[in-house]
Protein backbone atom coordinates (compact mmCIF):
# COMPACT_ATOMS: atom_id res chain seq x y z
CA UNK A 1 0.00 0.00 0.00
CA UNK A 2 1.31 3.44 -0.87
CA UNK A 3 2.23 5.40 2.19
CA UNK A 4 1.51 2.63 4.66
CA UNK A 5 0.57 4.32 7.94
CA UNK A 6 3.21 4.67 10.66
CA UNK A 7 1.09 3.30 13.48
CA UNK A 8 0.53 -0.19 12.15
CA UNK A 9 0.56 -3.01 14.64
CA UNK A 10 1.46 -5.72 12.18
CA UNK A 11 1.54 -6.47 8.47
CA UNK A 12 0.64 -9.77 6.87
CA UNK A 13 1.96 -10.56 3.40
CA UNK A 14 1.04 -13.97 2.13
CA UNK A 15 0.60 -15.92 -1.04
CA UNK A 16 -2.03 -18.65 -0.94
CA UNK A 17 -3.52 -21.13 -3.39
CA UNK A 18 -6.96 -20.15 -4.64
CA UNK A 19 -8.79 -22.89 -2.74
CA UNK A 20 -11.48 -23.14 -0.06
CA UNK A 21 -9.06 -24.88 2.32
CA UNK A 22 -6.46 -22.13 2.01
CA UNK A 23 -9.20 -19.54 2.46
CA UNK A 24 -10.27 -21.24 5.70
CA UNK A 25 -6.72 -21.24 7.12
CA UNK A 26 -5.90 -17.67 6.16
CA UNK A 27 -9.20 -16.18 7.30
CA UNK A 28 -8.85 -17.87 10.69
CA UNK A 29 -5.28 -16.61 10.99
CA UNK A 30 -6.15 -12.98 10.21
CA UNK A 31 -9.22 -13.01 12.48
CA UNK A 32 -7.16 -14.37 15.38
CA UNK A 33 -4.65 -11.54 15.06
CA UNK A 34 -7.43 -8.96 14.68
CA UNK A 35 -9.03 -10.33 17.85
CA UNK A 36 -5.85 -10.08 19.90
CA UNK A 37 -4.26 -6.97 18.52
CA UNK A 38 -6.84 -4.47 17.22
CA UNK A 39 -10.06 -2.76 18.25
CA UNK A 40 -11.86 -4.02 15.15
CA UNK A 41 -14.74 -6.48 15.42
CA UNK A 42 -13.03 -9.80 14.61
CA UNK A 43 -16.32 -11.36 13.46
CA UNK A 44 -16.74 -8.59 10.92
CA UNK A 45 -13.16 -8.97 9.67
CA UNK A 46 -13.60 -12.73 9.41
CA UNK A 47 -16.88 -12.50 7.48
CA UNK A 48 -15.72 -9.89 4.96
CA UNK A 49 -12.39 -11.58 4.28
CA UNK A 50 -14.00 -15.02 3.95
CA UNK A 51 -16.58 -13.73 1.46
CA UNK A 52 -13.99 -11.84 -0.60
CA UNK A 53 -11.74 -14.91 -0.80
CA UNK A 54 -14.73 -17.20 -1.49
CA UNK A 55 -15.59 -15.04 -4.48
CA UNK A 56 -12.01 -15.13 -5.72
CA UNK A 57 -11.86 -18.93 -5.40
CA UNK A 58 -15.26 -19.51 -6.97
CA UNK A 59 -15.46 -16.87 -9.70
CA UNK A 60 -11.93 -15.66 -10.50
CA UNK A 61 -10.21 -19.04 -10.04
CA UNK A 62 -13.35 -21.06 -10.96
CA UNK A 63 -12.40 -23.63 -8.32
CA UNK A 64 -9.48 -24.74 -10.49
CA UNK A 65 -6.06 -25.46 -9.08
CA UNK A 66 -3.00 -23.47 -10.03
CA UNK A 67 -4.05 -19.94 -9.11
CA UNK A 68 -2.07 -17.86 -6.65
CA UNK A 69 -3.88 -15.32 -4.49
CA UNK A 70 -2.02 -12.50 -2.79
CA UNK A 71 -3.29 -11.53 0.64
CA UNK A 72 -1.94 -8.40 2.28
CA UNK A 73 -3.28 -7.08 5.55
CA UNK A 74 -2.26 -3.98 7.47
CA UNK A 75 -3.45 -3.96 11.06
CA UNK A 76 -3.89 -0.61 12.79
CA UNK A 77 -5.29 0.00 16.25
CA UNK A 78 -8.78 0.78 14.89
CA UNK A 79 -8.63 -0.22 11.22
CA UNK A 80 -7.68 -3.21 9.16
CA UNK A 81 -6.76 -2.62 5.54
CA UNK A 82 -6.83 -5.56 3.16
CA UNK A 83 -5.64 -6.02 -0.42
CA UNK A 84 -6.46 -9.22 -2.25
CA UNK A 85 -4.94 -9.85 -5.68
CA UNK A 86 -5.38 -12.79 -8.01
CA UNK A 87 -4.52 -13.90 -11.54
CA UNK A 88 -7.99 -15.25 -12.29
CA UNK A 89 -10.81 -14.04 -14.50
CA UNK A 90 -11.82 -10.38 -14.26
CA UNK A 91 -15.12 -9.34 -12.72
CA UNK A 92 -17.91 -9.01 -15.30
CA UNK A 93 -17.63 -5.60 -16.95
CA UNK A 94 -14.42 -5.09 -14.95
CA UNK A 95 -16.41 -3.73 -12.03
CA UNK A 96 -17.85 -4.90 -8.74
CA UNK A 97 -21.34 -6.30 -9.27
CA UNK A 98 -24.23 -4.97 -7.24
CA UNK A 99 -25.53 -7.23 -4.48
CA UNK A 100 -28.58 -9.27 -5.45
CA UNK A 101 -31.64 -8.54 -3.36
CA UNK A 102 -33.49 -11.86 -3.18
CA UNK A 103 -36.18 -11.78 -0.49
CA UNK A 104 -35.50 -14.22 2.38
CA UNK A 105 -38.91 -15.87 1.82
CA UNK A 106 -37.65 -17.12 -1.54
CA UNK A 107 -35.12 -19.20 0.44
CA UNK A 108 -32.05 -18.29 -1.61
CA UNK A 109 -29.10 -20.65 -1.22
CA UNK A 110 -26.58 -18.13 -2.49
CA UNK A 111 -26.03 -14.47 -3.22
CA UNK A 112 -25.30 -13.61 0.41
CA UNK A 113 -21.59 -12.99 -0.04
CA UNK A 114 -21.57 -9.71 -1.88
CA UNK A 115 -24.29 -8.16 0.27
CA UNK A 116 -22.31 -9.10 3.41
CA UNK A 117 -19.17 -7.57 1.90
CA UNK A 118 -20.96 -4.38 0.92
CA UNK A 119 -22.55 -4.06 4.37
CA UNK A 120 -19.48 -4.73 6.47
CA UNK A 121 -16.54 -3.34 4.45
CA UNK A 122 -15.64 0.26 3.83
CA UNK A 123 -13.74 1.87 0.96
CA UNK A 124 -14.34 -1.20 -1.18
CA UNK A 125 -12.52 -0.80 -4.50
CA UNK A 126 -11.81 -3.07 -7.41
CA UNK A 127 -9.57 -2.67 -10.41
CA UNK A 128 -8.03 -4.86 -13.06
CA UNK A 129 -4.35 -4.21 -13.69
CA UNK A 130 -1.74 -6.12 -15.68
CA UNK A 131 -3.93 -9.21 -15.88
CA UNK A 132 -4.64 -9.27 -12.15
CA UNK A 133 -7.69 -8.47 -10.04
CA UNK A 134 -6.98 -6.07 -7.20
CA UNK A 135 -9.58 -5.64 -4.48
CA UNK A 136 -9.00 -3.37 -1.51
CA UNK A 137 -11.19 -2.63 1.48
CA UNK A 138 -11.10 -1.54 5.08
CA UNK A 139 -12.79 -2.83 8.21
CA UNK A 140 -13.00 -0.35 11.06
CA UNK A 141 -13.70 -0.37 14.75
CA UNK A 142 -17.29 0.82 15.16
CA UNK A 143 -17.17 1.99 18.74
CA UNK A 144 -14.56 2.27 21.49
CA UNK A 145 -11.64 -0.11 21.12
CA UNK A 146 -12.24 -3.53 22.60
CA UNK A 147 -8.72 -3.68 23.92
CA UNK A 148 -6.17 -1.01 24.65
CA UNK A 149 -4.28 -1.31 21.41
CA UNK A 150 -0.60 -1.85 22.00
CA UNK A 151 1.77 0.68 20.51
CA UNK A 152 4.78 -1.18 19.35
CA UNK A 153 6.81 -1.18 16.17
CA UNK A 154 5.21 -2.86 13.20
CA UNK A 155 6.26 -6.42 12.75
CA UNK A 156 6.00 -8.63 9.73
CA UNK A 157 4.02 -11.81 10.01
CA UNK A 158 3.66 -14.63 7.58
CA UNK A 159 0.88 -17.14 7.84
CA UNK A 160 3.07 -20.01 6.74
CA UNK A 161 0.26 -21.84 5.05
Amino acid at each position, binding site marked *: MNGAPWNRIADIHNLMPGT*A*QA*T*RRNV*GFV*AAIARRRTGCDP*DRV*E*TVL*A*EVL*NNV*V*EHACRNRAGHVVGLEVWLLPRDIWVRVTDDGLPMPGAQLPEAKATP*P*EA*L*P*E*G*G*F*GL*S*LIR*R*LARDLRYRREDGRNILTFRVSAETAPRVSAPRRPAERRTAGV
Partner: protein
Amino acid sequence: MQLETRRTGDQLYVRAGEARLDAAVAIRFKDRFRDALDDAVRRVVLDLSQVEFIDSSGLGAVVAVLKLAGPERSFTLAGLNPAVEKVFRLTRMDTVFTIEPAGGARADAPDAVRAGTG
Protein backbone atom coordinates in the same frame (compact mmCIF):
# COMPACT_ATOMS: atom_id res chain seq x y z
CA MET B 1 -17.24 -32.94 8.10
CA GLN B 2 -18.57 -34.09 11.44
CA LEU B 3 -22.32 -34.52 11.67
CA GLU B 4 -23.71 -36.09 14.82
CA THR B 5 -27.24 -37.41 14.69
CA ARG B 6 -29.73 -38.94 17.12
CA ARG B 7 -33.24 -40.19 16.50
CA THR B 8 -35.81 -39.89 19.27
CA GLY B 9 -39.21 -41.05 18.03
CA ASP B 10 -40.03 -38.90 15.03
CA GLN B 11 -37.43 -36.28 15.92
CA LEU B 12 -34.06 -36.07 14.21
CA TYR B 13 -31.47 -34.20 16.22
CA VAL B 14 -28.45 -33.13 14.18
CA ARG B 15 -25.37 -31.44 15.56
CA ALA B 16 -22.85 -29.92 13.17
CA GLY B 17 -19.57 -30.83 14.84
CA GLU B 18 -17.47 -28.28 12.99
CA ALA B 19 -16.06 -24.98 14.25
CA ARG B 20 -16.34 -23.56 10.74
CA LEU B 21 -19.34 -24.12 8.48
CA ASP B 22 -17.82 -22.65 5.33
CA ALA B 23 -17.22 -23.21 1.62
CA ALA B 24 -14.75 -26.00 2.43
CA VAL B 25 -17.46 -28.20 3.99
CA ALA B 26 -20.82 -26.81 2.86
CA ILE B 27 -21.56 -29.44 0.19
CA ARG B 28 -20.58 -32.37 2.44
CA PHE B 29 -22.73 -30.92 5.22
CA LYS B 30 -25.74 -30.88 2.89
CA ASP B 31 -25.05 -34.41 1.60
CA ARG B 32 -24.65 -35.88 5.08
CA PHE B 33 -27.81 -34.20 6.29
CA ARG B 34 -29.70 -35.67 3.33
CA ASP B 35 -28.40 -39.13 4.28
CA ALA B 36 -29.65 -38.72 7.86
CA LEU B 37 -33.18 -37.76 6.82
CA ASP B 38 -35.89 -40.34 6.24
CA ASP B 39 -39.66 -40.39 5.73
CA ALA B 40 -40.44 -41.16 9.40
CA VAL B 41 -38.82 -37.94 10.60
CA ARG B 42 -41.40 -35.26 11.38
CA ARG B 43 -39.29 -32.83 13.40
CA VAL B 44 -35.72 -31.69 12.82
CA VAL B 45 -33.50 -29.87 15.31
CA LEU B 46 -30.24 -28.56 13.85
CA ASP B 47 -27.81 -27.71 16.64
CA LEU B 48 -25.13 -25.23 15.55
CA SER B 49 -23.61 -24.73 19.00
CA GLN B 50 -20.24 -26.13 17.87
CA VAL B 51 -20.12 -23.71 14.94
CA GLU B 52 -18.16 -20.56 15.68
CA PHE B 53 -18.08 -19.20 12.15
CA ILE B 54 -20.44 -19.47 9.21
CA ASP B 55 -19.93 -17.97 5.75
CA SER B 56 -22.33 -17.46 2.85
CA SER B 57 -21.77 -21.02 1.59
CA GLY B 58 -22.51 -22.45 5.04
CA LEU B 59 -25.61 -20.28 5.29
CA GLY B 60 -26.69 -21.46 1.84
CA ALA B 61 -26.25 -25.06 2.99
CA VAL B 62 -28.43 -24.46 6.06
CA VAL B 63 -31.13 -22.98 3.79
CA ALA B 64 -30.72 -26.02 1.51
CA VAL B 65 -31.30 -28.47 4.39
CA LEU B 66 -34.36 -26.48 5.48
CA LYS B 67 -35.68 -27.04 1.95
CA LEU B 68 -34.68 -30.73 2.07
CA ALA B 69 -36.74 -31.09 5.25
CA GLY B 70 -39.62 -29.45 3.41
CA PRO B 71 -42.72 -27.64 4.64
CA GLU B 72 -44.28 -30.82 6.05
CA ARG B 73 -41.63 -31.16 8.77
CA SER B 74 -40.91 -28.77 11.62
CA PHE B 75 -37.37 -27.42 11.48
CA THR B 76 -35.66 -25.65 14.38
CA LEU B 77 -32.21 -24.09 14.65
CA ALA B 78 -30.59 -24.24 18.08
CA GLY B 79 -27.41 -23.09 19.76
CA LEU B 80 -26.51 -20.18 17.49
CA ASN B 81 -23.32 -18.48 18.62
CA PRO B 82 -23.29 -14.65 18.42
CA ALA B 83 -21.10 -14.56 15.29
CA VAL B 84 -23.37 -17.08 13.55
CA GLU B 85 -26.54 -15.33 14.65
CA LYS B 86 -25.13 -12.07 13.28
CA VAL B 87 -24.76 -13.55 9.78
CA PHE B 88 -28.36 -14.81 9.86
CA ARG B 89 -29.51 -11.34 10.95
CA LEU B 90 -27.41 -9.37 8.44
CA THR B 91 -28.78 -11.46 5.56
CA ARG B 92 -32.30 -11.37 7.09
CA MET B 93 -32.41 -15.16 6.93
CA ASP B 94 -33.26 -15.11 10.65
CA THR B 95 -36.79 -14.20 9.49
CA VAL B 96 -37.40 -17.54 7.75
CA PHE B 97 -36.05 -19.90 10.43
CA THR B 98 -37.44 -20.96 13.77
CA ILE B 99 -34.50 -20.14 16.02
CA GLU B 100 -34.36 -21.24 19.63
CA PRO B 101 -33.30 -18.42 21.91
CA ALA B 102 -29.68 -18.57 23.05
CA GLY B 103 -28.72 -19.83 26.47
CA GLY B 104 -29.94 -22.83 28.39
CA ALA B 105 -28.84 -26.32 27.49
CA ARG B 106 -31.28 -28.35 25.46
CA ALA B 107 -32.97 -31.03 27.45
CA ASP B 108 -32.73 -33.35 24.48
CA ALA B 109 -29.11 -32.56 23.64
CA PRO B 110 -27.38 -35.86 24.12
CA ASP B 111 -24.08 -35.98 25.95
CA ALA B 112 -22.90 -38.71 23.68
CA VAL B 113 -24.57 -38.76 20.32
CA ARG B 114 -23.76 -41.05 17.48
CA ALA B 115 -20.76 -39.48 15.83
CA GLY B 116 -20.15 -39.74 12.13
CA THR B 117 -16.95 -38.67 10.50
CA GLY B 118 -16.26 -38.12 6.90
